């Protein structure tokens, strides 16, 4: 019985079809007026005043191009997602939350293997090994490597200037972790390990996590 009703409804649905589309839209610029939808490009700005578009990821792209050498590059949309925090635009743009969780676990895992290689199993859980991947150190890595301009997020309070309180450290650290997560998901484990060994856990590089952690106290 259900079958017959279903088929009759289906036939009715296919004969009567009301479609309504609004094709004309007005995006308002300038002073805010209630009821009018604002133009995104006007208010989607990061704390540095940079507009939300693909141009801002150029520094990150350049930073990665030497790492990936002649292999295919990561696509721009993913790089923009890596640089976008959940706080930006009320989460309506692709954001890096889960990439960061994933990358963070990988970083922790690789750092613990690095700690065992250099200091033995007993060095795990020591302050030195914890400091290596603290929020502050990860954020400083982003600043030292000049990747901090094109990061999209929203400051909790515009008047707070201390980066450890206003959320900047936390957001920057998330971006670095998301970069690791994005590399893993897009390029696999080998390239990500190369990135971690050459850029993050490289004692000869002054901008590596090891040397940053030594200087931050």
């Amino acid at each position, binding site marked *: 019985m259900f079958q017959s009703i279903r088929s009759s409804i289906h036939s009715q649905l296919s004969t009567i079809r009301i479609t309504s589309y609004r094709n004309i839209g007005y995006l308002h610029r300038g002073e805010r007026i209630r009821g009018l939808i604002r133009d995104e490009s006007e208010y989607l700005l990061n704390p540095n005043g940079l507009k939300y578009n693909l141009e801002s990821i150029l520094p990150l792209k350049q930073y990665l191009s030497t790492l990936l050498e002649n292999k295919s590059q990561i696509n721009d949309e993913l790089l923009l*997602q890596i640089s976008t925090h959940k706080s930006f635009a009320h989460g309506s743009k692709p954001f890096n939350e889960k990439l960061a969780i994933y990358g963070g*676990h990988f970083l922790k895992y690789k750092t613990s293997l690095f700690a065992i290689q250099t200091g*033995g199993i*007993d*060095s*795990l859980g020591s302050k030195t090994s914890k400091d290596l991947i603290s929020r502050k150190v990860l954020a400083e890595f982003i600043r030292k490597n000049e990747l901090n301009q094109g990061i999209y997020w929203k400051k909790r309070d515009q008047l707070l200037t201390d980066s450890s309180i206003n959320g900047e450290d936390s957001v920057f650290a998330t971006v670095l972790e998301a970069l690791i997560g994005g590399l893993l*998901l897009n390029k*696999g*484990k080998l390239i990500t390990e190369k990135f971690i060994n050459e850029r993050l856990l490289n004692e000869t590089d002054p901008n590596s996590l090891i040397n940053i952690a030594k200087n931050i106290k």
Partner: protein
Amino acid sequence: MQSIIKSSSSSSSSVTFIRIRQFSTSSTLFNNLSNSNKTIVSEEDASKSAPLVALHKRLNLPNDYKLGTLTRALTCRSSRGNLANNYGLNILGKNFLSYYVNEYLLSKYPRLPLPVLNTAVSSYISTESLHNVGKYSWGIEIDETPILNKILNEEPKEYSLGKLRFLPINQIEETGITKLTSKSKDEINSSSAYALGVRSIIGGLYISTQSEDLTKKFIYDHIISRKLDLSKMFEFEQPTRELSRLCKREGLTKPIAKLLVENGRLSDKPIYVVGVFSGEEKLGESYGSSLNEAKIRASVNALKNWYLYKPLNNSVPSDKDYKPSIIDHGIVIV
């Protein structure tokens, strides 16, 4: 051979320990802590413990996995004595577990919302789950015989090396005795101790074999192989609204609920079947005893279809033949 017989026949003779420094090489970057002056049990003594050898065989651990390391994995930091403890092994095992379980879930269900992902991860590797693995699946025993009984039973000292050793929370209350000291911070309950043991055994596997692949396989065999139903972990507050936000974000036509089938509208037990459509595409379908209920259920069904999407290729980034699949844009914020 003679020496083994000698020491086992005289149960009171003390266990011989040798000081091994294999885990702590000198380093400039990391300063060594707690375990540097602790002793690691020799293979000869460890091999006399029947529970230890049995556990090693039962878990099918490779020969590189020394019995001394297994003893260490079962010795929690709070246990008495001067044996090297599992503090570092536990941290290593935890890092291995959280990475591989997260990787597995994210590759299998790339669109899983974070709260569901966290619940799923903890149902694999929370203290309670690992306690179950250690106690009921691996059959690790706790060393709870009082020392006096051990002496009276003439139990060889090595015997307890194969059991889980920790300082338990003392819950025994006796009438007339008031406990004045507060709970020591080293006291842990047995489920935490089991979890420490399981994590440390995994950490010990990497230390012994230096092979990430073997450790990964061990985690897949013993932890990830457990069955888990993710579709029951979802809870939506405003499913219809969330679905319409999702369609907007993904550039799909606005979702519309359509009544597909109904029966007994005028009875006290009506039933409606509603489908949610975006343009021509059906996103989800479900039933309900009122139109509204059916619509909400259909939206939940549509959202679950979206969030529980499984890609066809099932490789994870740490596989050698990994092929990238989709990268999720994040959950929908209503």
